[in-house]
């Protein structure tokens, strides 16, 4: 597989959310506003890229028995670095994100890519795979938050697009709506897959 194929496979064909059903928890939690989704997505892309590169680079040294422990350790390391960086350089962003940054550690997509790809491929390929998985995840988050923000707030990225006549749907702001939207998305993707077959 060349680099482009790796990217396409991990971002779309094997998209973490609609194909592997990973990272659902954060997809439900942060998608009520597009800004939150974008920042969460960027954090995940960054963490994925760097931790996949590192895990892959030292993969021959990692003893199989403690492999997952070592992976979690490396992932947590990068997440804390991101958090420190934001606190020291972009304090406003850090304050707005609050606990979201720390939550990246628990995102199972990262562990999933480490186990499925980085542990048996070269560092550069693993990094591309990580970025791909992160981009795929971010796109789904943005899509869901686009729908939720339009219906829930009448806005896109915080800019009011619906007039004052619009009555916001409170359900769209709360987590249950993400369950419905996510399920519908997975359903549509499945229908398309079956037609192709």
């Amino acid at each position, binding site marked *: 597989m060349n680099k482009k194929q790796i990217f396409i496979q991990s971002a779309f064909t094997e998209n973490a959310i609609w194909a592997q059903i990973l990272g659902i928890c954060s997809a439900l939690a942060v998608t*009520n*506003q597009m800004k939150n989704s974008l920042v969460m997505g960027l954090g995940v892309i960054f963490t994925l890229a760097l931790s996949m590169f590192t895990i892959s680079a030292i993969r021959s040294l*990692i003893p199989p*028995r403690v492999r997952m422990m070592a992976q979690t*350790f*490396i992932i947590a390391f990068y997440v804390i670095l991101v958090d*420190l960086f934001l*606190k*020291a350089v972009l*304090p406003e962003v850090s304050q707005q994100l609050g606990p979201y940054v720390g939550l990246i550690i628990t995102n199972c997509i990262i562990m999933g890519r480490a186990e499925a790809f980085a542990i048996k491929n070269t560092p550069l390929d693993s990094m591309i795979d990580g970025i791909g998985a992160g981009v795929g995840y971010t796109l789904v988050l943005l899509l869901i938050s686009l729908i939720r923000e339009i219906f829930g707030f009448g806005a896109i990225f915080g800019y009011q697009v619906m007039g004052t006549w619009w009555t916001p749907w409170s359900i769209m702001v709360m987590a249950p709506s993400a369950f419905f939207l996510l399920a519908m998305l997975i359903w549509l993707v499945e229908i398309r897959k079956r037609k192709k077959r």
Partner: protein
Amino acid sequence: MSDKMSFRDSRFYPVFFMIILSAILTFILATSYQLSKERVKMFREVSMQTSLLSLFIPELPELNGKTLAALEAEEISKLYKTYIVRKSLNAEYNYYKFSREGQELGYIFPVSVKGLWSTIHLLVAIKSDFSEYIGIKVINQGETPGLGARITEAWFQEQFSGKAILQADGFVTLKLIDENEQPASGMIRQITGATVSSRAVVSGVREKLKILYEQYFSKKSKGDK
């Protein structure tokens, strides 16, 4: 078989590997923490000072219609030192006193209340005789974005200024009404879809002020009641 290979296969290798990995990663994290500590602390201080000053904007002639956000960090610190003094009530609790030209204009109390998901941290500014609120400011919260998190919106916080706290017949309970209703005196418009967060702020602040007053401040006021 070489010595190295046999070590890689031994049961000590995983332990050895994890110790080395921890040492390296922890070292890098500790170093970056140390390097960024001062900056983070400074940002935090300035942000706290800005929040404290923001409760007394009308009392700051230096601003000349400017906002606090337009000021440099040093100017904020200078204003803070001119007007605000930190006092401690006991080993754990500090509050702030705002005074201008020797005249005490009010107190600012840090208050934490339990919201729906999170602990909401607020600063509450009141007149020093506990007669009315000067203002409140939410400094940290983790409520639902778009619902409970709207307690940070200006209109919600501004409702408190001028509201009575302690009157002749005791501590006033502010009445919560719908967001779209027209408020009369002694009423706070709560956020639609965020009853718990709104109520937590209103009653939590009242409770805390009551406790503070009864434990520490009632003796200071000269025997009124």
